[in-house]
């Protein structure tokens, strides 16, 4: 029973990471209908930036905040410079840009930071298990951070004018221009936010899986499974899907298929969703009357 409870809690902790990355994927998908394959690599790159800042001697939380800001700027910059000229290009051309971005980031990381596996510090006390061994300090802390991030993102989109404008631009670009919204900049802001969210996810998972250029590869796959499960065009659904995948992965890994085959579960979820309910559990159904 203790073991099951622990797997469940650990599932929620990693699920929070998947939920964050899934949210980043969905945010860009909603406004552009493209999946950013480089989302994981961008997050890993941000984590390297954080490690560099920490190694320079900055306190963890200052490095944390700086990394978020740098990642945000990087996301905005990438959209403005690389994706903006692609707005009217074909789907395949866009996919090409995303794959190119992925390769550039991965190789740049190997070149700048080398391919050796590095330890990444956790800001949370992780030596003493809490709640009678149920959860480690890092699991508790990173879950709190990811939940906090998701909460802030929700409040931003739901209750601020800029958040509303970004949602409007994603739903209906031409109507948004007619009310004076600068749609191009909303897309760039979306990229910035997605990059910032990815950076936080990277910094929270790195102490667990260790930092190397391919760190986010599996995580991106889980996140994608979560996003599909919840509904690729529904941010709230993607978050729930991310948590669900985290729990399924942990329980399945412990009791069903073993740790070596855990990643297959993600692929299994992707295939099941596409076969049974392609719009996902909470996929958007627009009601309309004419």
């Amino acid at each position, binding site marked *: 029973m203790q073991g099951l409870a622990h797997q469940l809690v650990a599932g929620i902790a990693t699920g929070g990471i998947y939920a964050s990355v899934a949210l980043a994927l969905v945010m860009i998908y909603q406004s552009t209908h493209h999946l950013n394959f480089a989302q994981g690599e961008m997050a890993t790159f941000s984590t390297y930036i954080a490690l560099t800042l920490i190694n320079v001697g900055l306190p963890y939380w200052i490095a944390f905040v700086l990394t978020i800001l740098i990642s945000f700027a990087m996301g905005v910059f990438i959209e403005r410079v690389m994706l903006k000229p692609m707005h009217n290009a074909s789907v395949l051309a866009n996919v090409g840009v995303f794959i190119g971005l992925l390769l550039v980031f991965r190789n740049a990381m190997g070149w700048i930071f080398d391919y050796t596996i590095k330890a990444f510090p956790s800001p949370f006390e992780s030596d003493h298990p809490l709640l009678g061994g149920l959860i480690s300090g890092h699991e508790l802390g990173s879950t709190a951070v990811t939940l906090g991030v998701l909460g802030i993102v929700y409040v931003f989109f739901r209750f601020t004018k800029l958040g509303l404008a970004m949602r409007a631009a994603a739903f209906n670009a*031409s109507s948004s221009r007619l009310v004076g919204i600068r749609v191009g900049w909303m897309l760039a802001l979306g990229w910035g936010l997605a990059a910032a969210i990815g950076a936080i996810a990277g910094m929270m998972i790195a102490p667990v899986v260790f930092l190397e250029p391919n760190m986010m590869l599996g995580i991106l796959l889980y996140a994608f499974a979560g996003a599909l499960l919840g509904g690729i065009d529904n941010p709230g659904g993607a978050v729930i899907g991310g948590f669900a995948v985290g729990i399924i992965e942990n329980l399945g890994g412990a009791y069903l298929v073993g740790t070596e085959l855990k990643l297959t579960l993600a692929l299994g979820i992707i295939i099941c969703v596409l076969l049974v309910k392609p719009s996902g559990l909470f996929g958007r159904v627009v009601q309309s009357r004419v």
Partner: protein
Amino acid sequence: MTALLELRDLHAGYGQTRVLHGIDLTVDAGGVTALLGANGAGKTTTLRAVCGMVRTTGEVTLAGERIDNRATEDIARRGVAHVPDGRGTFMELTVEENFKLGAYVRKDREVTSDFEQMFGYFPRLRQRWKQQAGTLSGGEQQMLAIARALLLRPRLLLLDEPSFGLAPLIVQDIFGILRQVREAQGVGILIVEQNANLALDFADRAYLLETGRIVVSGPAQEIREDEQIRRSYLGY
């Protein structure tokens, strides 16, 4: 009266297809200009050309300032509100959010009192306040589209077939409200309509468009009373 909107030798099209072949048209400040014509004549394209949604050559002047080939959002920020065909409402968002987006570029503090004014024109929208715009009836959606456009506090309102697909009673309602709006807000209106009778009744100036060229222009009343024009172009 001074001209609010002036089109001079305006050409526009989509890709290789030319749709407008040199249009001259005027909307007076606070006046209503109707643009009539058959399907495919270029009425909708003319409205799109005014707010920068298609590439154009020629001049588009708003209150003395050239606005041709500016970005759509910049033209909106200069006070041009467009209710396009298909209405341009945000179907996935609530009525409240559509209202807020209508006033998106405004920085003054009278936005809330303008919301009240819109409820005065369209009381049904208050009852639908928290409802998704896509679930409204066709008439309610058209009202929402007009409210959304007016919340920009426009100098110029472009209306693309506001009567399209609506029951006659609702159409009467909407045109009644447009008359009130015109009195109260002093906004210039350029309206495209299939229903020539309705439009000529509402407008003080009218243009007849045929395959991208203006073939008749003049005061709305004269055009309405001209038997020749009515028979050959308007078909009633």
